[in-house]
């Protein structure tokens, strides 16, 4: 080998890690994982964490029905799992929790551990937010400096901010709203983040839809990714989802891509002091 080739090899060696850290291994924080009782019955915590790591996630926000599922994952991987406290003790409380006045006390008791970054994911639509239980949940999040992971429509989001203008809200599924409404709310509430869980319409075959591209580029620091493992089966979808996200994220500018993949989640965590 002649000497003049060495610089090429050195350049290649320097470039290799960058290439390896390309879109296929882009770090992703999945902010919408549930590990509810039917999942933990079929998928042990160690295996569940392995599945998440296999998807090249750098962190996973987990909330579960009930919360013991989240804590078992946290015990397995404290550096990797971000616990979020769900107000549901078990499946089936999705629409009954709103009127269950034992929920706030249950949350208060659990919050004493100080491990949580947020409260949610909970379901509240429209004037559900005016119910005493939901109002207390908003108040608890304010007291403890936590974000609210709200599966809500735009009306409910507005009401949350009316009750607490300083609330930090992670808007699950971006409310399944279109780009117009999402833009309106993101512009109005600077503490509002939106996860894209369960949504497909923003990208087709790796190409980002023009209206969504405009939205992502206008609010690059407000979108996050999430699988939503609402059934045990969907744990097997985490890897597919991450691969799909890496595909469409390639279509965005580098800075936007990194922000949506993991940067915004890290920033949200920093905002709540984690």
């Amino acid at each position, binding site marked *: 080998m002649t000497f003049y080739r060495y610089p090429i090899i050195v350049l290649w060696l320097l470039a290799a890690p960058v290439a390896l850290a390309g879109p296929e291994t882009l770090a992703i924080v999945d902010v919408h994982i549930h590990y*509810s009782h039917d999942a933990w019955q*079929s998928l042990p915590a160690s295996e569940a964490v392995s599945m998440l790591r296999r998807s090249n996630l750098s962190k996973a926000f987990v909330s579960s*029905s009930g919360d013991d599922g989240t804590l078992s994952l946290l015990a397995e991987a404290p550096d990797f799992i971000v616990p979020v406290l769900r107000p549901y003790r078990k*499946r*089936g409380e*999705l*629409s009954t929790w709103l009127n269950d006045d034992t929920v706030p006390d249950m949350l208060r008791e659990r919050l004493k551990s100080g491990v949580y970054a947020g409260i949610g994911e909970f379901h509240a*639509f429209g004037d559900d937010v005016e119910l005493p239980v939901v109002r207390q949940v908003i108040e608890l999040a304010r007291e403890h400096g936590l974000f609210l992971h709200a*599966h809500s*429509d735009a009306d409910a989001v507005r009401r949350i901010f009316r009750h607490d203008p300083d609330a930090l809200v992670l808007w699950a*599924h971006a409310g*399944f709203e279109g780009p117009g409404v999402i833009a309106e709310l993101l512009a109005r509430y600077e503490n509002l983040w939106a996860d894209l869980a*369960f*949504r*497909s*319409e923003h990208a*087709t*075959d790796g190409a980002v839809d023009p209206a969504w591209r405009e939205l992502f580029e206008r609010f690059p620091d407000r979108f996050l990714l999430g699988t*939503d493992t*609402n*059934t*045990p*089966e*969907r744990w*097997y*979808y985490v890897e*597919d*989802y991450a691969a*799909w996200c890496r595909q469409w994220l390639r279509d965005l500018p580098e800075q936007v891509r990194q922000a949506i993949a993991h940067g915004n989640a890290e920033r949200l965590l920093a905002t709540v002091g984690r």
Partner: protein
Amino acid sequence: MTPSPRRIVSIFAWLVGTVLAIVAGASSATSLVEFTESERYFIESHGPWPPPVVVDPGNRFSGDPRAVELGERLFSDVRLAAVEGMACEFCHRRDRAFTDGLVVGVGRQVLARNTPTLFNLAYNRWFGWDGAADSLWAQSIRPIIAQAEMNADAGIVRRLFETDPIYRTALSGMLEIPVGELGDDAVLALAGKLLAAFQETLVTPRTPFDEFRDALLSADMARAARYPLAAQRGLKLFTGEGQCSLCHFGPSFTNGEFANIGISHMIPNDGVDRGRLAGMRKLKESVFNLTGPFNDDVTRANAVGTRQLRFRHTAFGEFRVPGLRGVAATAPYMHNGSLATLEEVVRHYSELDMDRLHVHGGQILRPLHLSDEQIGDLVAFLESLGATPPGNTSQSGQVIEKQQYDGHAEQ
């Protein structure tokens, strides 16, 4: 005057006859359930039956009697499989409404999904539980070459067509070039198209429901009243409060699409069945899809649906909405055969686990918490989609193009 014994008998007979007539009249007057305008719309949409015969423009042999005959022969031919004693009818048994009655199919190996019936396939848009095929002929190729099922290949099929004098002679009159000169994929496509030509002829007969529907529409209330009350009440639930007709729509009782109704799609000891999501991927990759070279429709108008197919996360765990005609004869139910009876199916819907369905805002599926009587009524209605009324014969209408039928069914 004392009446004679004969007179007494005659008065008694008159009285009995009058009472019976009053009872019958009262019974007739109360033996029709009242349906709302919306329910009547859906009842009408579930017919007429049988629909016009459909010709598949993607299959040049569709409707060709020679192909139908060859396809039927192929359907029973054990030489088509690389597994001893196996043929299509091994799983799709004629005496079991073209199913096998098992929880999941058994080919060369135990499979992950229930064996569906082959009735009324001519009216489908997608094929297989996951819609991995966009034509009946492409779907018919899949089990032939699947290692877990018949484990054959193009060589086996070509040899059969070349060596059996019946196939050889018939095909020589149907093809421009000898079978021996066809490529592997073309030979498989040929087998699929012959099998499809046969399967298109499998149409369920008219049923008590069809008699009721037609009588109701023609305001023949006496005829309509012959339909059992339990079935009528079940039909009212089906088309009304239950909203079943929204997905089990049209004459075949299916919208032809895919849905997740909260049935587990884990495969025992083998991860998860991705359902429609995997089906979409397989379809796009298949050389036999309608955008490919084996589609006989030169206009490619029949490939619009395949070209328009868009990925969506919700497809994970969705399975094809099955038609319901003849459903009582095709137990067990669901993609994995996990529900043994129609009553179990109705109970599943009655007590839906909404946490398993990803719901936001308005929803079609919701638990109805039906009473035992209501469950019985729905089962009675579903059973009435299968029993053939006495003296009835199936009549086919005029021949139309498949796309025309698809359009008609969606209206």
